[in-house]
């Protein structure tokens, strides 16, 4: 798997957000801060979420931009943002967001790996309850 997709600086483990949109903005900002996307991408992530939920199960959502926002992606990257207090995601509880910036499909193997981890309840818990950046890096890269 590509190991250049997740910058340890884009792993935030102790965030809180009053609602889904705030959580998505936090993820978007993490991607902006590591230079993966331009600012307008954050709004595109909100647009995407309004058309269809990116909740995937196991308290995890994978917010990402719309097809039209690919021009705002500078390089493929993901961010991992943990909300230990939980965020209401259209009725689902989300404690972990994996934000995605992707031009092509270079991030798909990583998504598949993430899904693989989440299908294993023990590994899913390790990911959701991680308190060290190194734990996330170890699971995902």
């Amino acid at each position: 798997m590509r190991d250049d997709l997740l910058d340890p600086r884009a792993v935030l483990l102790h965030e809180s957000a009053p609602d889904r949109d705030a959580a998505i903005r936090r993820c978007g900002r993490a991607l902006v801060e590591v230079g993966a996307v331009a600012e307008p991408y954050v709004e595109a992530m909100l647009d995407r979420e309004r058309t269809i939920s990116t909740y995937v199960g196991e308290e995890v959502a994978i917010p990402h931009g719309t097809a039209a926002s690919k021009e705002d992606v500078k390089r493929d990257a993901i961010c991992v943002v943990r909300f230990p207090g939980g965020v209401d995601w259209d009725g689902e509880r989300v404690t972990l967001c994996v934000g995605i910036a992707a031009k092509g499909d270079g991030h798909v193997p990583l998504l598949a790996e993430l899904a693989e981890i989440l299908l294993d309840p023990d590994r899913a818990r390790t990911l959701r309850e991680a308190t060290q950046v190194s734990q996330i890096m170890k699971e995902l890269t």
Partner: protein
Amino acid sequence: MAQRTVTVASASGLHARPAKLFVQAAMKAEVPVTIRAGEKTVPAKSMLGVLSLGAVHGTEVTLEADGPGAEEALDTLAALLSRDLDAEDPAHA
């Protein structure tokens, strides 16, 4: 056992929005449907299962189901996979 083999047509592959639409359609099916890519077979109504296939644009997948309504269910799901769902994205402006 009813079976359909189709190529994933959505530009972004079978994850994100196209995967969600596929899973939602599979949940409405009257029979359990499985989807296979390569060696891996997962329930079509499991979002995590479908994501774990890592199917990109052009990946060949096989749908399978058994029982009354299986043919119709597979027709619907196969038709969905062979459309570019990204091109029909309301947020695609």
